[in-house]
C-alpha cells in the first residue's frame, strides 16, 4: 500500500532533524516537510486559523484553548521548546524592581509577545506558584498586534476572548523602544539577550509575526535579567518539581487519526527514534565550539538524566497537569480537559503497560 502523505511543519530541532531529512521515516507515512523559515510564530497562527498542516509543532497553551472549541487536532505527547522561561524575565534599570525579587513585579508594566503563548502561561503560573505574583498584579503589554497574534487568532477563529481579570494593552511600538522611553518595566523572554546566545536567537525568533527591536547598544545596562543566576533558579525549580516546562507540543489532524488510527503510533515511534539518534550523535560528537561540552553534559546528566526531553503521556503527566492548572487559573480555559479528549486513543493504549 502506498504511503500516506502528511504535511509537516516544525522547527528544525536537533531531536527532530532525522525526521526532517528523511533519515528516520514513520512507518507507512511520508512526511512532506514544509520548513519553518519565518520562525515559530506563523505556523501556530496558521494552525489556529486555517488548520493548514496535518502534523505540526504547536503551542501548548493555544492548543488547550482551541481544543474545547472543536478545533480539529489531537495532541501527540512529543514536546518541544522546553524552557525555564520565567528565569529570563528582564527588568528595566530604574523600574523599582530589584534583582532577585520577583515580588517587586507587582504593580509593574510587563511586556509579552503574545498573551496566551505558552511562555506566558508558564511564566505567569510559576510567578504565582513560587512567588505569589498573580497575573492581575501586573499590567500587560502585548507586542504582537490585536489580530495578527495567537491570542488574536483564537479570538477571530473561535470567539475566545482575552481573560477579563487582567489589564492587557497592545503595544504600539517594539519593547526596546518602550524600555528606552521608560514605558515598560519588565519583559518576559526566551533568550538571555546577553552574550553569544542572545542576539542570534532574538533575531530569528522575531522574524515574521514579531516586531523589529530597537537597538539597545547605546544603553547596555538598561535591561538586565530579574534573576541574577537564571540557571541556578531553573535548577532549583527542576529539583523541586521535576518539571522542565514544555512550551510546544505536536498536533495531528483529527480527521486523519479517525480514518487511520495507526498514524499516532507510527509518528510516536518515529519521533522517538529521531530523538534516540540525535542523543547518540550528540554524545559522540559534541560541537567543538561548545568548549567544555563534555563537562556540561556530565552536569546535565546528573540533573536531567540521559534524556531531558522525555516523550509520552506518563513522563509528562505532571508538566501537563501544571499547564492545565495554570491555564484554568489564568482564565485561558474554563476547565481542565480529560486526557482522552486531548490525546489519540492509541497513544493512551500504547502506554497502558509502560
Amino acid at each position: 500500500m502506498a504511503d500516506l502523505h502528511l504535511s509537516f511543519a516544525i522547527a528544525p530541532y536537533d531531536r527532530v532533524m532525522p525526521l526532517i531529512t528523511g533519515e528516520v521515516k514513520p512507518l507507512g507515512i511520508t512526511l512532506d516537510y514544509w520548513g519553518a523559515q519565518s520562525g515559530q510564530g506563523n505556523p501556530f497562527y496558521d494552525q489556529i486559523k486555517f488548520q493548514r498542516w496535518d502534523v505540526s509543532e504547536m503551542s501548548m497553551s493555544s492548543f488547550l484553548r482551541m481544543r474545547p472549541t472543536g478545533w480539529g487536532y489531537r495532541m501527540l505527547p512529543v514536546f518541544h521548546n522546553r524552557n525555564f522561561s520565567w528565569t529570563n524575565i528582564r527588568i528595566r534599570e530604574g523600574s523599582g524592581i530589584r534583582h532577585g525579587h520577583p515580588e517587586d513585579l507587582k504593580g509593574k508594566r510587563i511586556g509579552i509577545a503574545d498573551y496566551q503563548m505558552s511562555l506566558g502561561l508558564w511564566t505567569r503560573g510559576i510567578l504565582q506558584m513560587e512567588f505569589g505574583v498573580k497575573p492581575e498584579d501586573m499590567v500587560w503589554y502585548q507586542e504582537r498586534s490585536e489580530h495578527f497574534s495567537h491570542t488574536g487568532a483564537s479570538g477571530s477563529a473561535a470567539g475566545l476572548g482575552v481573560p477579563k481579570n487582567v489589564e492587557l494593552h497592545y503595544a504600539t511600538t517594539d519593547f526596546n523602544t518602550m524600555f528606552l522611553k521608560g514605558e515598560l518595566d519588565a519583559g518576559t523572554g526566551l533568550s538571555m539577550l546577553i552574550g553569544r546566545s542572545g542576539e542570534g536567537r532574538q533575531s530569528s525568533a522575531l522574524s515574521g509575526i514579531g516586531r523589529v527591536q530597537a537597538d539597545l547598544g547605546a544603553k547596555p545596562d538598561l535591561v538586565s535579567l530579574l534573576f541574577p543566576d537564571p540557571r541556578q533558579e531553573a535548577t532549583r525549580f527542576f529539583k523541586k518539581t521535576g518539571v522542565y516546562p514544555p512550551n510546544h507540543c505536536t498536533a495531528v489532524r483529527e480527521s486523519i487519526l479517525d480514518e487511520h488510527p495507526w498514524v499516532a503510533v507510527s509518528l510516536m515511534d518515529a519521533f522517538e527514534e529521531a530523538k534516540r539518534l540525535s542523543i547518540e550523535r550528540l554524545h559522540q560528537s559534541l560541537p567543538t565550539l561548545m568548549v567544555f561540552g563534555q563537562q556540561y553534559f556530565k552536569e546535565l546528566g546528573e540533573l536531567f538524566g540521559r534524556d531531558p526531553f522525555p516523550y509520552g503521556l506518563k513522563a509528562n503527566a505532571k508538566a501537563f497537569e501544571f499547564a492545565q492548572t495554570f491555564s484554568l487559573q489564568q482564565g485561558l480555559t474554563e476547565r481542565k480537559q480529560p486526557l482522552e479528549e486531548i490525546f489519540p486513543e492509541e497513544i493512551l493504549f500504547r502506554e497502558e503497560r509502560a
Partner: protein
Amino acid sequence: MADLKLSFACTPYDRVLPLITGEVKPDGITLEYSRAPGGVPRIFYDQMKFQRYDVSEMSMSTYLRMRSIKFPYRMLPVFHNRNFSYTYIHIRKNAGIRQGHPEDLKGKKIGIGDYQQTLGLWTRGILQAEFGVKPEDMIWYQGRGQHFSHTGASAEAGLAPPKNVDLRYATTDFDTMFVNGELDAVTGLGLRRGRAGVGGYGTGGQVGGSAGLERRGRGGAGEPDLVTLFPDVRQEAIRYFKKTGVYPPNHCSIVRESIINEHPWVVLSLMEAFEESQRLAIERLQQSPPTLLVFGPHYLRDLDEVFGTDPFPYGIKANAKAMDMAQTFSVQQGLTERKQPLDEIFPQEAFYREEAQ
C-alpha cells in the same frame, strides 16, 4: 578553468561541516572528502607513511617531527581538536597519587595512546611548565603497537623515540593493567564517567573515533576505579587559559607542498573557505544550540566570558604563542632537535595574507 580537485580528510567537526557538505566551497577547488573510517589516527598514519591526501587534518606534534625530515606538506594555521588534555589525566585510586597533586605523578606508571601524539606533547609540556613534573619522572606505557602507531611510523622514517624516557609497549589494554595494579595513571581526551564518558583512551569508550590503531579492550577485567587528577577539570583549564591565553590545539591542517608550489593561490582559497565554514557554524550554534544541551545558551555565555566569541581562532598570528609553546615542548621532550622557523612550516601566501592585519 576547471576546478582543481583535492582529496580531503578531516573529522566532521561542527566548524568544518559546511566545507564537507559542500555548502561552503573554496574558490577554484573541489574538495573530494574522504570519510576515513579509521578516524584521525588512521588519517595521520596514512599521511605519515603514504602521503595519501592532498589536504588533511594532522597531528601537530607528528607534523613538527616529520617536517624536520622533509615531510612534503605545509601547515595551514587552521587548528582542530583543541583540548586542555592534561586536565583529563585520570588516576587509579590507591596508586599513591593525591587528587589535585600533579607532583605525585613522579615515579608513577602512566599510560598514553601514542607517545608522540600531540595530546602527550601538551600534557607532558604543561605538567613540566606548571607543576615541575618532567616526562622522565614517569614510566610511559604506549597503548598502540610499536609499529602500528604514529610514534612507530615516525621511527620507520628515521625518528627514534626520545631516549630520555622509559617507554614501554603495553601488552594488554589499560583497563586490565589498572585492575592488575600495573598502571597508575592515564592521559586522556575526555571524562571517563557519566553521560559523556567517551573518548577517554583506547577503545573503551572512543566510539567511532579510533577504529584501526587502538588496542581492543579484552573486557572482563572489570571497571578500574579511576578519578580525574584535577578535582575540577574545568576550573583548572580556565586557570591555565587565563594565565597563558592558550587553548592548546592538538591538530592542524596540512596541504601537499607540490600542490602549493604549482598553485600558490590554493592556500588563500582554502583559508578563506575554512574561515567561512567556521563563521557559519558559529552563527548556527548561536541561533540554535542543541536543545538536548539544556542550558546551552547559558553555557555559551559563560564560554564567551572566558574565550570571546571564537574559541578556535585561525591564522598564524592568532596562534603564534600556541605554536611556539608546541615547538618548545617538542624540543624539550626530545621529539625534535630544534625549533623550526615558521617560514619552513607555513606557506608563503599564508604570511602575506596576514601582513596587514
